[in-house]
């Protein structure tokens, strides 16, 4: 699905106007979380969906970003906002090292290695108390009481991330990435240095995930290892966000992020207080069921299989199938 230019203008305008129209901290908070997941899901998608390296360890970069910001405040005595400058580059640097270790493995082996590295980082953050504060985590004061500055900052990061991925995928790099995903050996025999381009993909991907982490530290003002280095709540969620929206599509992970955040919140709040209380216990379960459903019936996600969905909806079957194309 390729969004026409006016679609994007409408999305940007709506996003900019949203907190001015809906003056509710609650909904703005939801949108900030969703935008954060847009960044994480999109960056995961660059590495996994476009380059074919399914990472189960994106929490590493998120955590590194978050701890960079946190440590700026607790250890260096400067504002945690410096983390927004440092978090991305440091996450990229760590990404390079991890890539150097893990990119010699392929397919499922790569996925497993990233889980292992992720767990090592989590445990290290728990145990290395003198640096990270261990399970006590890092607690800071929020800089702004209003949610507006955070909202616009998250929005800028999200659009920056999507735009950067869009540009990367239209450059030569993007074609190399997809060549590596489709057939690494064929790509290498055509002269693509697979290791180098996988690393470049990881550098961009980890940069934005680290940036998201640094933002999270500043926004939530509290982190601990189980939150930011979590395998299940960050690394795997990043994957599921990508899967639901559609891997290898530009708008898939952003859509998946909004679905994930709002589906979970709808259930967590028992349909915003309208439903019975026990509904709130279902929030992760419903998302899991949705994931199973999507993988079973829409293997390429909602955006990736959009033409298929539209064909089901309209009676003009077959007309749309001719124009079915993957990715944008």
């Amino acid at each position: 699905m390729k969004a026409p230019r006016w679609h994007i203008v409408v999305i940007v305008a709506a996003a900019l106007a949203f907190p001015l129209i809906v003056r509710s901290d609650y909904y703005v908070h939801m949108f900030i979380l969703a935008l954060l997941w847009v960044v994480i899901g999109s960056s995961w998608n660059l590495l996994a969906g476009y380059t074919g390296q399914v990472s189960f360890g994106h929490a590493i970069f998120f955590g590194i970003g978050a701890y960079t910001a946190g440590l700026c405040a607790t250890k260096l005595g400067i504002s945690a906002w410096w983390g927004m400058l440092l978090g991305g580059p440091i996450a990229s640097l760590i990404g390079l090292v991890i890539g150097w270790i893990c990119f010699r493995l392929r397919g499922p082996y790569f996925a497993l290695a990233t889980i292992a590295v992720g767990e090592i980082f989590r445990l290290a953050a728990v145990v290395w108390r003198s640096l990270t504060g261990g399970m006590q985590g890092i607690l800071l004061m929020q800089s702004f009481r209003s949610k507006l500055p955070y909202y616009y900052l998250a929005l800028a990061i999200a659009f920056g991330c999507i735009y950067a991925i869009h540009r990367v995928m239209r450059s030569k790099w993007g074609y190399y990435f997809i060549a590596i995903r489709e057939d690494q050996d064929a790509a290498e025999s055509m002269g693509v240095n697979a290791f180098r381009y996988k690393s470049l993909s990881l550098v961009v991907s980890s940069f934005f995930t680290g940036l998201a982490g640094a933002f999270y530290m500043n926004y939530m003002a509290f982190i601990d290892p189980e939150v930011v280095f979590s395998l299940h709540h960050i690394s795997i969620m990043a994957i599921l966000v990508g899967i639901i929206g559609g891997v290898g599509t530009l708008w898939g992970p952003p859509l998946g992020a909004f679905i994930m955040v709002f589906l979970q919140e709808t259930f967590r709040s028992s349909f915003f207080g309208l439903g019975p209380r026990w509904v709130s216990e279902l929030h992760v379960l419903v998302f899991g069921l949705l994931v199973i459903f999507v993988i079973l019936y829409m293997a390429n996600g909602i955006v990736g299989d959009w033409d298929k969905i539209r064909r089901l909806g309209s009676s003009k079957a077959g007309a749309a199938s001719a124009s079915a194309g993957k990715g944008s």
Partner: protein
Amino acid sequence: MAVFIQTVVAGILMGGIYALVGIGMTLIMGVMKIINLAHGQLMMVAMYITYVLYEYLHLDPYVALLVTMPALFVLGSLLQRYLLNPLIKVESILPENQVLMTVGIGMVLTELARLIFHSDYKSVRPPYTSMSLYAGSIAFNLPMVIAFGIAVLLTIGLFIFLLKTDVGKSVRATAQNKEAALLLGVNAERITVFTYGLGAALVAAAGTLLLPIYYLFPDLGGAFTLKAFVITILGGLGSTVGAIVGGVVLGVSESLGATYISMALKDAVGMVIFLLVLIFLPGGLKRLTKI
């Protein structure tokens, strides 16, 4: 020295249970070529069944094996039949779709457990859990010894099954070469369903055996999924002998790590071994022994 021996003994006993977890995983991996990231969650389901049987019917955990293993066999077969096999025919960008499906399955199982039993810790404590056998100054915790014994028996049974029976031979044939097995008249699809069921039943046994010496909560599955693939990679994908060795190695190194490094870093030991094996010995112990 006594501490060292005691540590190693505890590690080996634990390793027997780990081996059961690993064998289930490696069978599934060998036949289906997928990593089953719901493996620990299946174990968690078996543990909750054991818990319910003990709590409400006062059934001894070791008798409960007769219920949990068939139950998980059925559950595993159904998952493979209706959720994993249909994905083989689907075209998708990422070839890892089946693996991601197991992630979804694991998540749903965990949340169902949380819904029914809530997040608090449960345990099953028959009177004999605190008993120990002594050999000199070395203590052998009784439930661990029983668990180790049953694990060994199950493993031997599995080997006889794989080596001597027709179905077992079909499983091995499918693992070695699916196309060739198909040509020779093996119903490969039915074998995958059977294998996933078998893998689930084995991990169910591990869970039930572990419950008297462990505790139970919904998120326990994730931790054991991690252990399962550490064992499998250590032993070599698809190698049953490797999984046994891998299980014992993991058990002993965790135990040593807990005694000599720190309790908190116990889990990191497994991960570090895992990374080292992936990098320096891809293919695992299978590469060294050729079994």
